[in-house]
């Protein structure tokens, strides 16, 4: 049956360098779980620790309740898909896929049968006798997945497997990966620096920065309710406006900013004291052009530049010495856009903005 993966206060150090600091989380069986973070944040090290190539310096890794200390990578119920796929170039596609079975001394006929079944599943029937280099990037991708599945693991670990593909293929493979995961019902643990991948595919996302897991939540919560300034700025685009707290009523706090008083939601239901230094994060698509004067959050801005990107138009604005970005849906008509002098009033809904404290010790 599906097995939970538990990281129990795992830290990983190399010499004096701490790659992962006190990772503590549970990945439930059957989940699509992503670690999202910039390169060098320790996410790959963490994955190698789960697969058994790296030992934790402190803490434990448990899979299905069993402590994995001293259990080698070849003895764990995990299969790792490498960033460069690590397909064996001298073997045929079928031999690649059947390699885990060859290891278990499954007979030649049966290996071939299973390889053909898996090729059927990844929609590459009849390619078993080809050499790996005869396949396209996306096909290699799927062969790597099939090879990992042939090992019949409980947990599939994927280390940025889509990063080598071009944009179109990457987007296609996202859907495909998610579909495969739901079909086979395995736990997928996915490493990526691409927030789009993490948000579209995952049940749960852990955002990592400098070895520390900053937030674990479902994609919508990660995007809409970031808990730390890093998450707010790393996941998606954000306008960050610094200020000090004026007042708070319920969950809404008002900051005094160079752009005037602005109201947003206090992150995590916290209560701020007046004069506390905070930052308000509001996403470009949550800013809108107010054709009639809004009740709150009135920002008088000047249009500096704009980019037309098809479905949206990005407006670069200047207000109170801060640069702002606004995504304007092309379908939305606005009289202000047509006006020539560049002065524009923008606003946002208080409950869509997030206010986070500047002091990192208070975040999280």
């Amino acid at each position, binding site marked *: 049956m599906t097995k939970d993966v538990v990281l129990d206060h795992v830290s990983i150090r190399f010499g004096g360098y701490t790659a992962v600091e006190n990772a503590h989380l549970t990945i439930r069986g059957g989940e699509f779980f992503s670690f999202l973070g910039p390169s060098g944040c320790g996410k790959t090290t963490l994955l190698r620790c789960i697969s058994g*190539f790296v030992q934790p310096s402190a803490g434990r890794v448990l899979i299905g309740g069993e402590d994995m200390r001293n259990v080698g*990578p*070849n003895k764990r119920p995990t299969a*790792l898909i490498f960033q460069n796929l*690590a397909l064996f170039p001298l073997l045929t596609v079928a031999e690649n896929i059947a390699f885990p079975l060859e*290891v278990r001394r499954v007979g030649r006929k049966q290996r071939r049968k299973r390889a053909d079944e898996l090729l059927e599943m990844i929609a590459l029937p009849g390619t078993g006798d080809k050499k790996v280099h005869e396949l396209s990037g996306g096909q290699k991708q799927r062969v790597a997945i099939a090879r990992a599945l042939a*090992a019949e693991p409980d947990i599939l670990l994927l280390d940025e497997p889509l990063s080598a593909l071009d944009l179109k293929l990457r987007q296609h493979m996202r859907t495909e990966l998610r579909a495969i995961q739901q079909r086979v019902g395995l736990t997928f643990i996915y490493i990526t620096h691409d927030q789009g991948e993490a948000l579209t595919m995952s049940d749960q996302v852990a955002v990592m920065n400098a070895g520390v897991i900053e937030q674990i939540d479902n994609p919508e919560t990660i995007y809409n309710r970031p808990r730390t300034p890093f998450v707010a700025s790393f996941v998606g685009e954000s306008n960050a406006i610094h200020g000090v707290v004026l007042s708070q009523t319920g969950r809404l706090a008002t900051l005094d900013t160079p752009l005037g008083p602005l109201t947003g939601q206090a992150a995590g239901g916290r209560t701020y004291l007046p004069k506390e230094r905070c930052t308000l994060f509001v996403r470009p698509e949550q800013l809108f052009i107010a054709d009639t004067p809004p009740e709150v959050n009135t920002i008088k801005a000047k249009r500096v530049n704009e980019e037309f990107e098809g479905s949206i138009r990005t407006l670069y604005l200047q207000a109170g010495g801060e640069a702002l970005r606004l995504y304007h849906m092309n379908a939305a008509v606005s009289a202000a856009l047509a006006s020539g002098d560049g002065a524009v009033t923008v606003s946002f809904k208080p409950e869509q903005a997030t206010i986070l404290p500047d002091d990192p010790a208070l975040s999280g």
Partner: protein
Amino acid sequence: MTSLARFSRDFSSRHGTGAASFVVAAVLFWIVFLILLPQLAMLDVSFRHNLPRPEVGGPRDVHTLDNYRYFLFGNSGGAALNALDIGVLTKTLVAAVLVTVLDILLCYPIAFILAHSASGAGARLMVIGLIVPFWINDILRAFAFRILFGATGVINGVGLSLGLWDQPIDFIRADVALYAGLAYTYVLLMVFSIYNAVETLDRNQIEAARDMGASWWRVHWRIVLPVAKPGIASGATMVFMLTAGALAAPQILGGPSNLWFTQLIYQWFNDAGDWARGSAYATILLVVCLAFVFLMMRIFRVSIGAIGR
């Protein structure tokens, strides 16, 4: 020849005509004057009689198969095989194969560790350790092995004083010293050939195989060895050819009853003064060795191109 022309055209467009003509001229000189012509001259001599100087160019100076006939049948005139000389050749080839296999077994792990496990200072130390012995002259090295393996040598001394054996072992007569000396001499050629091939292997492939449950044995058999194969082939070719053609080491380290085929060639040239027969024997050695190498390459499915890589 067309590929040579294409090469010179590419090369001259990149490095200028002067450099290109120098490289082409040097390579042609090397191949034609230093390899092809001497071999052809030797081949020609091997088909002639060993005549006294005044008769060279005279009516008796004609081509003959005598020298080759002598190798096969000796003085028996076709009645019996020349068991002695054929035996020496066979023994030389078997010994060269043994030395080559010994070097493969010795060098594969070294090359693998050098390419994939050792790093930084450790790797540099290993390479230096492999190279330093070659600062010592060939002959000296052979004599050093004689001292090492002699009846009163270091190994017998240690073995006797530790009580591992109670009579000095004659390593020289048993050819242990010879095999050890030859294998040692060509270790470097084998290590670097295999290293070149193994180094191209992506480490992730080893880890991927491990992750899928493969034992170390299987990782090497299925993943590393196929990549190392061309390197092993080129190393083995060099070691085999050089061992079969070695002269100094067999002379110094060989047992008293043990003759290397090169020693026969040497005797025909120098002691007997019969250059024609010496040439024939040298040609036989070359052809047999080449045939053997090509046969091995066919058996192990290695192409010439793979060796050149």
